[in-house]
């Protein structure tokens, strides 16, 4: 799905979290929103997911205005920074949540739900953990379950907020690879937020560098590395 962001701005009270920004994300791309904290990258991601409403501007999905769409209508698979797994549910019920929440007419049968959950557990390479609770999982496992839960709703796009932020370096590297594979397999337009430039450069097709609510540069990783557009970008990717 093609995502277009048209002059989106966001004010929290009187502070501008986003200056008017525009961005076009080609269908099937893996895009990183890269910037320091307070750069507005998470706000932009939440606006795409329908969790925040922009102060001005429009969001278009495949050319249709989606600005007023509710979070449920958007069908965006969202992976939260702290994963936000439902702590009172097993891994199975977590992943099945979105399917069970569908209206009766479009809800798959119990057996079909079980089949899909099993398939997703295979996809994230954790076939054995269906009956465990989130508190019994490691950080890396939680992150993968959160990803499976987001994929279960057959999303139109995948939005990830600092997906590797809370993990140690080794697990981080593995999961990076995992996300790349899942992206290539599903072909979903994927946007992830990160403050880690290595992560952005290594994983993304397109990197959007942000600072102070503005987009500093949009480009392929090698372009950003070789031709930083602003002094901020030069400093940020150097540090």
């Amino acid at each position, binding site marked *: 799905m093609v995502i277009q962001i048209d002059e989106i701005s966001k004010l929290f009270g009187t502070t501008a979290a986003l200056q008017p920004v525009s961005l076009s994300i080609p269908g099937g791309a893996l895009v990183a929103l890269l910037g320091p904290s307070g750069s507005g990258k998470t706000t932009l991601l939440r606006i795409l*997911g*329908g*969790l925040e409403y922009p102060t001005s501007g429009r969001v278009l999905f495949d050319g249709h205005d989606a600005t007023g769409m509710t*979070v*449920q209508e*958007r*069908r*965006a*698979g*969202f992976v*939260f920074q*702290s994963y*936000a*797994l*439902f*702590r*009172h549910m097993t891994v199975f019920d977590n992943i099945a*949540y*979105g399917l069970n*929440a*569908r209206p009766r007419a479009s809800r798959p049968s119990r057996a079909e739900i079980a089949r899909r959950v099993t398939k997703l557990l295979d996809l994230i390479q954790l076939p054995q953990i269906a009956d465990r*609770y*989130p*508190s*019994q999982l490691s950080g890396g496992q939680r992150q993968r379950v959160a990803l499976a*839960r*987001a994929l*279960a*709703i057959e999303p139109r796009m995948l939005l990830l907020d600092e997906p590797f932020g809370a993990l140690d370096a080794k697990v981080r590297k593995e999961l990076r690879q995992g996300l790349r594979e899942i992206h290539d397999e599903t072909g979903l337009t994927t946007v992830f937020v990160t403050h880690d430039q290595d992560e952005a450069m290594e994983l993304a097709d397109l990197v959007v560098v942000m600072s102070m609510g503005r987009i500093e540069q949009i480009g392929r990783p090698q372009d950003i590395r070789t031709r930083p557009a602003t002094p901020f970008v030069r400093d940020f990717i150097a540090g």
Partner: protein
Amino acid sequence: MSDIPLPPASLRPAAAARRFRAPTDEAPATRLVLILLAVLGLGVLVLAPLATVFAEALAQGIGAAVESLSDPQAWSAIWLTLLVAAIAVPLNAVFGIAAAWAITKFDFRGKAFLITLIDLPFSVSPVVAGLCIVLTFGANSLIGGWLVAHGFPIVFALPGIVLATMFVTFPFVARELIPVMIEQGRAEEEAALTLGASGWRVFRTVTLPNIRWALLYGVLLCNARAMGEFGAVAVVSGKIRGQTATMPITIEMLYNEYMSVAAFSMAALLAFLGLVTLMIKTTLEIRHADQLAAQRRH
């Protein structure tokens, strides 16, 4: 070998280990004093009075106690108290959840004011609260006059007692829920929304299961307090025997009339209802200890 002098006994590892105490540990004497103080406080303030109530109730044998409780006026008081609790507690649970939800999940102007308002019943004397209800809904007031004219009196009747009880017990549920809901944040609810769940479904399948223990605790406290409320109810009920006298009010009236067996029997029953509440809570906590732990660790 033997000419190397050994370090003094006090510095040898075994002795050092024996002398080492964790920095957070207190000396045995301190610990003993603290425990004794706690036991003494509990004994004087809780156990001795409770034992006295039961002893006085049974002073003339269990037969006299049971007989005093089977009196129609006693029955009426017991029934009224249970009825008031059965109305006030569920309503306060709903209002408490609504207030806690509004405060923790949304940002709006006047939030601090709402929090203060929730605490108001704790700081206002129940007698004052009762008087406010009498002045607002009494037969001489605008609203009260109209309601009485239409055959629905509030003051000196069940609705007044329920209102007074609800006012006094309002903070319990909200106060239990707010810290829990603040700690849990909004992320799980947001996750459920992105997965396509409606607001009501999010509440039912995510919010409610996460707050159920705090809710239960709040409801039980609210219940215990609702059954025991005296001051506010004393003002609004008019203390009509067999009609608007709740258990605490009946106890006071019986005691003032020197009917000590009857007074203490009912007091014992009221105390027993409170103890049952506490027992239910403890039993549930023991039975679901694993779930409680699982929720906290995450």
